[in-house]
């Protein structure tokens, strides 16, 4: 059987984590290709539903990576994001998925090394959790918006 390769979605703030990921590249530090980066203007822009949809569509883990506390470019988007992440963790726990597939981390733009380390560690911890149980679900599910909304 093919070894399980987790898919990790990382919502990275433009002002810190995204730049840190870039920095990791410049420093020739390798981090797992499992981590797919989505650049956001601030982690405050990441809603609970973005995290949930990523998992619903098959991501095995989601990282929300924002600025160090006190360093948010928009004052406190990172603090808000951290609260939303814990809300989603509770929601996931409620449906029996456990909170571990979602994590909030903070770092600065210069922390390329830290980014690479977080990416590697989180990939491994999700690998240990195994595939997202939702991924194996039968086809045929659907969600739609009603015409009136």
């Amino acid at each position, binding site marked *: 059987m093919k070894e399980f390769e987790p898919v990790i979605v990382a919502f990275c703030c433009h002002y810190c984590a995204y730049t840190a990921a870039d920095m990791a590249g410049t420093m020739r530090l390798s981090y797992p290709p499992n981590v797919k980066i989505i650049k956001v203007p601030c982690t405050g822009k990441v809603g609970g539903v973005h995290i949930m949809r990523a998992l619903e569509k098959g991501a095995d883990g989601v990282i929300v990576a924002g600025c160090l506390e006190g360093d948010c470019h928009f004052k406190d988007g990172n603090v808000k994001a951290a609260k939303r992440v814990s809300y989603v963790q509770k929601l996931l726990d409620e449906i029996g998925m456990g909170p571990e597939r979602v994590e909030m981390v903070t770092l600065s733009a210069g922390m390329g090394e830290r980014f690479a380390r977080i990416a590697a560690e989180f990939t491994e911890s999700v690998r240990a959790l195994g595939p997202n*149980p939702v991924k194996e679900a039968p086809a045929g599910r659907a969600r739609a918006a009603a015409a009136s909304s």
Partner: protein
Amino acid sequence: MITAERKPLEEILALIEPYDRILLVGCNECVTVCAAGGRKEVALLSSALQMARMKEGKTLDTVETTLERQCDPEYVEELVASIDRADAVLSMACGCGVQEVAKRFKEKPVFPAVNTKFMGASERQGVWAERCQGCGDCLLGLTGGICPIARCSKRLLNGPCGGSSNGKCEINPDVDCAWQLIWDRLKALGLESRYEDIAPPKDWRTSRDGGPRRIIREDLAS
């Protein structure tokens, strides 16, 4: 606003257990403001319910919609367009909205996804507190703008009781004593003398004690 809180997922899942196609209906008014049942919460719940089902190897089709106001038949009528795509309706509105949907679509089971709590105000971001119990005969003019019905644990009309200490109510040190607040406010307004007036027993027939209530405005009623 009317405040509400989402029910535990486990309870919601049990309610919709027999159904594979759900119409999930939010409301753009109070429950949006108190972050219980607006568009965002509809999307989150839809996602959570789908994942809970998929995890068990089952499926769930959800149609998401958020009405302008779920307590008005005009808006509920909009659901006609999508009702046939669902076996059951899950409403994230307050109890009024749930009932309007149930009244309009008699052939579909309708379930509440939130617990409707109270009429309240935002104390700060993310915190809501009870402010009015709709007693039908407002006393705020006598009590410095602080409601003794909703905010005094004993609904005293001539408080405080002996349990008031350091401005807090005896039920909980985190709860302000309403009568302390009333006294402070009357004092600030220079209306201390009003405090001496003994309020007569309240006629509760204007409240729920008179049975279900209704308002008829002859000039508007059709």
